[in-house]
């Protein structure tokens, strides 16, 4: 699906990360994994350290912290928000949704809408499209988009294909209606036939929590997990990404009239360095224009990784000048969302961990 939405701007951005630092090498050595093997993976995939949520801290807490800091930085009252969209796959409860819980915590107006989007790594772009739609055509003047997950809680420590990858974070993005801004362009898509490539089998209505015993299974590579853990077929996800992301990025750049030379940055979901460098090349972007540092310092942060990369890689420029940004998120679903538009100047709350 292609869409172009006018008279909107991205006004502010904040990200709060988990506060517990996990070191890839130290964790691997403690589990008895060969040092040479770890160094090879660290170098190729770009795993160094990640930040996970402290016990008891959820995506809701991380996003609330990011939102409160952003509102303070912008000197805005929470009652000025017309809608809150919460993108997460790790909500506090199956009911009510996180958006309603955050609505209550922040004391939003009863006329403010609140709803969740159940998406992962593509979710920030999907959420941004929904926020822009509400501002452009839905009667909202200011929409709060929160995107975050605590995927580190879903992995099994014995699963080397997922456990070392994920960091936890929550983001807050403020989108506003304005009179004279260049359009935001979006390309959204999905391939539901590939949905089993990233999956947590137990925990929903199909296989309710406790419906089946959590028997551990060991795959052909020695990875251990059970039905309530996140399972990922890395090769299938890699193929999907190489197949869909470059074409989505190309399509959204054509909508915006950008080229890899005229765009200021390509901000991709921070999956891992290997995937990022491969995608940057296929999309025709230089490494200098493609922020890649987030995944090595914070881990794969699911839907919070694009806002985190915007802040971590571009904050100095975004605070003072308009930048032509191309972004693409991709992952669970399988789904993808690409964005192209001018972002900045905007307010950015400093990146920090929560609790501080």
């Amino acid at each position, binding site marked *: 699906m292609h869409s172009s939405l006018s008279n909107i701007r991205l006004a502010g951005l904040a990200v709060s990360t988990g506060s517990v630092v996990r070191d890839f090498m130290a964790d691997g050595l403690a589990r008895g994994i060969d040092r040479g093997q770890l160094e090879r993976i660290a170098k190729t995939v770009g795993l160094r350290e990640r930040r996970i949520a402290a016990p008891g801290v959820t995506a809701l807490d991380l996003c609330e912290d990011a939102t409160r800091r952003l509102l303070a930085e912008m000197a805005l009252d929470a009652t000025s928000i017309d809608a809150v969209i919460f993108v997460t796959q790790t909500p506090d409860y199956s009911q009510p949704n996180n958006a309603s819980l955050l609505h209550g915590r922040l004391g939003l107006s009863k006329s403010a809408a609140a709803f969740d989007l159940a998406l992962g790594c593509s979710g920030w772009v999907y959420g941004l499209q929904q926020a822009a739609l509400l501002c452009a055509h839905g009667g909202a003047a200011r929409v709060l988009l929160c995107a975050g997950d605590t995927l580190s809680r879903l992995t099994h420590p014995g699963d080397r294909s997922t456990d070392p990858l994920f960091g936890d974070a929550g983001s807050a993005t403020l989108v506003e209606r304005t009179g004279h801004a260049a359009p935001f362009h979006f390309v959204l898509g999905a391939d539901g036939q590939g949905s089993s490539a990233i999956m947590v089998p137990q925990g929903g209505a199909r296989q309710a929590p406790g419906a089946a015993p959590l028997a551990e299974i060991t795959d052909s590579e020695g990875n251990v997990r059970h039905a309530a853990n996140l399972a990922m077929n890395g090769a299938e996800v*890699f*193929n999907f990404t190489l197949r869909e992301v470059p074409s989505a990025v190309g399509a959204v750049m054509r909508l915006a009239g950008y080229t890899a030379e005229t765009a200021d940055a390509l901000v991709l979901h921070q999956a891992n360095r290997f995937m990022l460098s491969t995608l940057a090349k296929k999309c025709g972007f230089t490494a200098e224009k493609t922020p890649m540092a987030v995944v090595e310092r914070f881990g794969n942060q699911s839907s919070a990784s694009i806002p985190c990369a915007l802040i971590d890689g571009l904050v100095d420029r975004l605070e003072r000048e308009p930048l032509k940004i191309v972004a693409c998120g991709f992952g669970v679903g399988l789904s993808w969302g690409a964005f192209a538009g001018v972002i900045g100047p905007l307010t950015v709350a400093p990146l920090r961990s929560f609790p501080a």
Partner: protein
Amino acid sequence: MTRMQHLPALQADVDVLAGADEATRLDGLPSWDSLAVLLVISHFEHVHKVEISGAQVRACRTVGDLLALIPLRS
């Protein structure tokens, strides 16, 4: 160009194949793992412009089997 002539390029991209020949068994390589599978997929995509699946790579027993996945036009 024969498939065997593609081996040096494959070895350059997939580090764990260094020193291997056509008959080398993949399950005998100490670091033949999911990362190596990704590197093979990436190599085929970049060099040979074909998409191969993880299942295709995992079904290979030897380096020669991997090379047999290269399209003849290459």
